[in-house]
């Protein structure tokens, strides 16, 4: 979906690459035993190492390494058996060591690829350049005191995976789809909770503009864009800004910009000339990380079925459309819910009810699947009643509304309210006779060739039956009796 932007001088194409910082799901930090819980009182989750006290040394958290390997495998990427932690040197009050321990020349994960799902049901492969492990910094609080800056080191040393994409995206939608897919994969793997609100997933956008087919233009990096909505808005804004400069005959300065959430604009943070010289060098406190033999294979064996594989299975085995399958696999819980509903039932019917009805209601009410009043088993019960002709699809919607309201079983509601569908041919015959008797003029018109009136008879008969007449049976009987 390479969507071009029309400018004064012709069409422009966006070239987008993303750097996503994903907090590794782990009880303790990358190089210390301090806890990582979100929302704790400032400076309560800080070890001597995190505060960079004199003489303190980092010790690598083995669990975090396994999480990174797992993520690498989930991104269909090369996992490097040997990687190196380096120091990235710069001064800032929320960086107590005066350097961030990161990976530079030798990351733990190399090239990979993920498939993104676009709104039109098509997919596109986006390259992953690398994934490396690094420490998060603390937080500088500028709003606590009129004159002073406070520092909270709770996040200092928390393990992050920086996942860098190739510049393969061509629109804000593609960038959004990439972030959504990446988040889904991380959540399936359990290696990052993907909560952008809590900052456990953060995004830097690299964007340049070019005329279609032209070589790459100069890019700007937009830092810390913290929701999918902002990713899209920042891209749209920045693309327009760059086009305007280029069309006025200007040049793009390679620089780092910040997304201003309130104004909805990007602002210059520092130019290339002001860029830090980070003086990377291998951290002498840490030996090169060498993965033990068999670790990668052992972790590979524990991988869950990932969204893309699941999607293709749903399409292949169960005949779902790419769109439906994509919606269902977007979250692991959702896919599991659907699979429970679909088990032993009509998979398409199950998909329809899960997506259109249940997710529709939950979406309107702003609820998660976890809070759903209708469990997978109960939704399955409702579908069973449709499949065995106990109720019609129309009645089913009524029953479903009641289920959402009360949380009751479908069968119980049907019994209570006497909604069981009329399938007795005698009763249907009687019903049809009544309707025909009451509308003899219409019967005559119909027999005189006014076919359209058939719908009228169906409606009348349904009304008399209180909606309970089996539609197929009713149609058949009407056709027979109305025949001249």
């Amino acid at each position, binding site marked *: 979906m390479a969507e071009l932007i029309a400018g004064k001088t012709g069409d422009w194409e966006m070239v987008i690459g993303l750097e996503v910082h994903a907090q590794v799901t782990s009880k303790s930090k990358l190089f210390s035993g301090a806890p990582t819980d979100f929302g704790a009182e400032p400076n309560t989750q800080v070890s*001597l190492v995190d*505060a*960079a*006290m*004199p*003489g*303190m*040394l*980092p*010790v*690598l958290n083995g669990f975090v390494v396994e999480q990174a390997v797992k993520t690498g495998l989930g991104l269909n990427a090369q996992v490097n058996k040997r990687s190196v932690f380096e*120091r990235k*040197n710069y*001064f800032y*009050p929320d960086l*107590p*060591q*005066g*350097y961030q321990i990161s990976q530079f020349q030798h990351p733990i994960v190399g090239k990979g690829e993920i498939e993104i799902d676009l709104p039109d049901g098509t997919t596109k492969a986006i390259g992953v350049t690398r994934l490396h492990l690094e420490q998060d910094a603390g937080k500088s609080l500028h709003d606590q005191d009129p004159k002073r*800056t406070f*520092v909270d080191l709770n996040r200092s040393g928390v393990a992050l995976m920086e996942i860098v994409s190739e510049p393969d995206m061509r629109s804000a939608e593609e960038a959004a789809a990439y972030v959504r897919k990446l988040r889904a994969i991380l959540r399936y793997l359990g290696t990052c909770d993907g909560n952008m609100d809590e900052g456990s997933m953060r995004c830097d956008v690299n964007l340049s503009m070019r005329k279609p087919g032209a070589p790459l233009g100069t890019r700007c990096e937009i830092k810390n864009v913290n929701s999918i909505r902002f990713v899209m808005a920042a891209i749209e804004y920045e693309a327009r800004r760059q086009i305007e400069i280029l069309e006025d005959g200007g040049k793009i300065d390679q620089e780092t910009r910040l997304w201003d959430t309130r104004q909805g604009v990007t602002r210059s943070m520092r130019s290339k000339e002001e860029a830090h*010289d980070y*003086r*990377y*060098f291998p951290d*002498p*406190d*840490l*030996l090169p990380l060498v993965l033990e033999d068999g670790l990668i294979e052992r972790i590979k064996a524990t991988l869950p079925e990932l969204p893309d594989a699941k999607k293709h299975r749903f399409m292949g085995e169960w005949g779902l459309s790419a769109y439906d399958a994509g919606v269902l696999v977007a979250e692991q819980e959702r896919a599991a819910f659907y699979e429970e509903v679909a088990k032993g039932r009509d998979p398409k019917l199950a998909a329809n009810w899960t997506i259109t009805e249940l997710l529709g209601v939950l979406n309107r009410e702003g609820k998660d699947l976890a809070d759903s009043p209708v469990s997978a088993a109960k939704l399955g019960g409702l579908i069973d009643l449709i499949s065995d002709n106990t109720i019609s699809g129309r009645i089913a919607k009524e029953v479903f509304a009641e289920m959402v309201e009360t949380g009751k079983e479908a069968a119980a509601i049907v019994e209570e309210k006497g909604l069981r569908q009329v399938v007795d041919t005698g009763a249907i015959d009687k019903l049809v006779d009544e309707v025909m008797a009451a509308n003899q003029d219409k019967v005559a018109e119909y027999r005189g060739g006014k076919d359209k009136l058939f719908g009228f008879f169906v409606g009348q008969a349904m009304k008399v039956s209180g909606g309970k007449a089996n539609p197929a049976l009713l149609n058949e009987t009407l056709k027979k009796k109305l025949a001249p």
Partner: protein
Amino acid sequence: MSAVDLTLAEALDRLAKKDISAVELTEAHLEQMAQHRSLNAYLVETPERALNEARASDERRAKGAAKPLDGIPLGIKDLFCTKGVETTAGSKILEGFVPTYESTVTANLWRDGAVMLGKLNMDEFAMGSSNMTSAYGPVENPWRRPGSNAKLVPGGSSGGSASAVAARMALGATGTDTGGSIRQPAAFCGIVGIKPTYGRCSRWGTIAFASSLDQAGPFARTVKDTAILLRSMSGFDPKDSTSVDMPVPDWAKDCVGNVKGMRIGIPRQYRMDGMPAEIDRVWTQGAQWLRDAGAEIVEIDLPHTKYALPTYYVVAPAECSSNLARYDGVRYGLRAEGASLTELYENSRAEGFGAEVKRRIMIGTYVLSAGYYDAYYLKAQQVRALIARDFTLAFEKCDAILTPTAPSSAFAMGEKMDDPIAMYLNDVFTVPASLAGLPGISVPAGLSDDGLPLGLQILGKPFDESGVFRVAQAIEDAAKFDAKPALLKVA
């Protein structure tokens, strides 16, 4: 004989026999410290704590529960963080810093019953070879040239440790050695000092200078005493990723002086132009002693020796420039206010660091910066690998290597101060083994023409401290070094 003249081994023996109590031993040392305070060896004295520990030690011994170092009074280099006791690394930037934690090395010593007398002066952040760079004033060597009143340096960076042990103000002391900071001051002060193999002693809680080189080790007045101390200091520590998980031998058992059949390497490249005759003399003498004791002397080649100092002065400053970034005035230590964040950094670091530390931070920042990294840091790492390989190849022909420890005896305070290169040359014989991570010991071997101690260095294979102690003991036995510092003769 005064209690302070005992060796550590003798003191342990007397304590065991109840000929002396830990309290008596400690009191004697506290008195000696008070008497020689002018040496400026101790930055902090902890007499109350020492006496409490000594009393507790005597109680343990009375109950028959004495530990390997029970009641032995020691001085601690101020680079080791000591819980509740000010730790400054000889720098103004850490003035008033009181750690809430204990370094692994010192914790090991206290676990084994040792008594802490205080914290010892040192070159600022262990950068120096004279102890002149301490923010708390220079340390004086208890030795003087006969007939001269010139104050001499004790060497560095562990100058306070060497001076204190030489002046009988401690039975032993901890030091750290990055490029020679244990071996060179041991040689200047006429005592024994060993830097074990990199990874033997945990670096946790020891303030970092250059992480890939820093290694702790002991000072004492005999080879065996250092062997006893090193055993307590060593051991695997999961808190230091570069610490090595290997058994710690009882090295005192290796101090028997039997070198029969051992092959001792004499590196051709250490015979340098302009080397003083007295250094050559003591080196040749040392080789002869070992030959007399039944060792075979072999000439070996360490072809990359001449690149060792330049390599060291790229690698060590590079690491130090990063390691010292944490002293920013934000969380602990000295803060000099400024109108902006940058000014706060600049003022705190300008005021807190001394000239030598600043010089090395600037060199280190330079060699790591964009455009210079490959030419300096990367090249130095490559040369470092070649230097290590030199030793690997040499050790195919010999079991240990004998060299002088330093190119001169102790020099006077103020000398070489305006010439950093001349100062750096002090480490010419010690730096190569540091770059290769090898164990090295300095043993007093004789006196210079002007009556000052000279040391010989023995280098061993990685983790072969046993071999190093064996050869060192043979040198000690043959040298029969019993000269005493001028200061003690006066007293």
